[in-house]
């Protein structure tokens, strides 16, 4: 199962847990699984079939352009991060 870091502002949904595990072959599947265990997670992270604007996801320390479609391994670590920009 993938290990997901729960952003601090969402821990009201996980009973204060900062890290939880969830199954899935893609980020989207992991989010769906999380949403079952912790209802409301998906609505905070996603806007329809996309990640919320301004949000990025990293899998195993690498930012991914695929977003929710990014494949996830059985031991993967998933983090939701602020999307960045440059000058």
């Amino acid at each position, binding site marked *: 199962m993938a290990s997901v870091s729960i952003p601090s502002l969402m821990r009201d949904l996980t009973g204060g847990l900062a890290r939880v595990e969830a199954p899935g072959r893609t980020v989207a599947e992991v989010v769906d699984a999380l949403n079952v265990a912790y209802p409301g997670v998906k609505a905070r992270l996603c806007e329809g079939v996309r990640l*919320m*604007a301004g949000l990025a996801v990293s899998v195993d320390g690498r930012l991914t352009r695929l977003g929710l479609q990014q494949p996830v391994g059985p031991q993967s670590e998933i983090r939701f991060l602020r999307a960045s920009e440059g*000058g």
Partner: protein
Amino acid sequence: MANNKNFSVIGTRPPRVDAAEKVTGRAKYGSDAQLPGMAYGKVLRSPHAHARIVSIDTHAAESLPGVYAVVTSADLLSAEERAARVAAEDWGFLAACDQTLAHDKVLFAGQPIAAVAARTPTLAEQALALIAVEYEVLPAVVDVLDALRDDAPLLHPGLRTRSLAAPSEQPSNVAVYAQQLKGDPAQGFAEADVIVEREFRSLMVHQGYIEPHVSTAEWNADGKLTIYADTQGLFAVRDQVVWLLRLPMSDVRVTPLEVGGAFGGKNNSYVDVVAALLARKAGRPVKVTMGRADTFLGTGPSSGTVIRLKLGATREGRIMAAQAALYYEVGAYPGSLAGSGAHVMFGPYVFPNAQVDCYDVVVNKPPTASYRAPGGTPATFAMEALVDELAEKLGLDPLDFRLLNSVRNGSEDLDGDLYHHIGGVEVLEAAKAHPHYTAPLAGPNRGRGVAHSYWGNWGARSSCTITVNPDGTVGLVTGSVDITGTRTSVAMQAAEVLGLPLERVKSSVGDTDSIGYSDVSAGSRTTLATGTAAIRAAQDVIAKMSARAATIWEVPAESVTYQNGVFAVAADAEKRFTFAELAAQLPNTGNTVIGVANVDVGEWGASFAAHIVDVEVDPETGKTTLLRYTAVQDVGKAIHPSQVEGQIQGGTVQGIGWALYEGYVYNEAGQMLNANLLDYKLPTALDLPMIDPVLVEVPFPGHPFGVRGVGESPILPPPGAIANAIARATGARMTQLPMTPAHILKQMGKI
């Protein structure tokens, strides 16, 4: 390609490929576009920071002889289309339209209302003066903390804060709220022996590029649009234009001309759509040029900020906890910079416990844009000033204190990501070992300050083609606008791989029809990512030429090697072509060889910088004079060391401007009082000492030659370093940017 190999092109300092054109005045910039029959476009801007547009009467302007077209928001979006977009809640699109030409409301002084195209610039200005706009002025929100008050006027009555927290139905001026939490900050502070806490403020600042924005649009007879753009991203302009004008992408060609400076401010498109609208209505090419005031009022500066920071450390000098709240003005439309600021601010050090709350707040000022290390400079100022104060309270050397708490390979950042292949410690150690750090400070009222910084850099998408000419030269084309010398630094990487001298690589930037998609030249990505594309394209060239040699020689392709500029077969000394010899054979033996690559670089190396500055403060006037400046930075592998030095020197001076001189000054009605280069003060040559750059080369393994982005880091440390030097010279801790003489006198208790 190991970093320790002997390079023949990488690491040398040839004149940039665009130097001759630029020193002779022949280089064609956006503002130099001249097309037959071209008209001149000017934009009418709102004098009010917050107002309802009651009516716009363009009749008199349209009737002026020599005026070819007048456009307003109605020309951008018909009433029916607007109604449909409103029904579809397409707020992003509508906001982009309103920022191009305001519809029923203006949210900042300088917002475009209408535009005209006329035979001469004088006529265009006269026509602007004839446009009658009736406004109903509304109360303006100018200060970020005022915008947070419960009774503050709402800029966007429908705006709900974007956040991962439980959604609120309450409309707000907070566009984005984010938080990072690590460990247990309360516990961390409890374990700290010394705690320091301050509130820091900074004003909006502008990128200050010397060429104002300009765009020239021409509708061809086939109905397709060409834009000669002044931009950091040809595809960014294309995407904006096709989005707002609802055109097929294939109908819009964007040709980038030379860019007179950008620094993030030309990631966004401000006048391209207006030029296209005017040109369509006028039936002739139109060039829309912003003046300097337009540039201050109507483009995207960097946020003004309020940052509250609290740090705690043990007696031994270990930082135990941090608490921060960052309030960033994002201007009149939702945006996000505070999160970037927090990321940068907390990047250099290990914080076992931290809570960081970030608020992006809308105010009646221009919508902000990127500016060199976006969001980072005011945040680094706050952190470095407070870290310095903490070191002083602990009686520790400021660099030793930073070294003790510096992130290292394997350290965790606030997001929980691990640092790898970073040069933060190397940079701090190089600063400490630099003779400047121990040189005597002769004279009274002098002080030496240091500051450290982190910047994450960027990779992303780049495309490159390399065409082999029969005479052994090659043509290299990328989709990355060159503002800083990247045609040269990218070509040097291809030349190194191809085994050719730089003179035989003709390096140019394509247009949107001729080269694959490339992201904006921003985020210090071009030498890294476009360089990677050039390396891959060069490798493609070598592979294709090796295959051709194998065909000519009738040997298996894998038996052909290419080394030191020679294609050869190990087993047969007769079988030998120089690059030029094989290139000459190409037309007779098959097709032209074109190397192609496009990359999406997903990993890039962070960059650290430590600056040392000596200042003298006039105790009677509060004026700060810089005496000596040293800028140490981890640059990965310097492809063109002189250009890397130039990035460091230029970025440092922008940071010095932010520290001492620059800032948007507003009245209570939200009107900018210093929208000119007399009262918005960029540093001049006379305000500065030589900036001594020290390149620390800690290669980034994700790039074949070890390149890291270098452009953004140097803007980060100057405000903190200068504030710390002022503190040592005067005893006064500075908490506000710019650190004006008046503010310094006040902190010194003199006024």
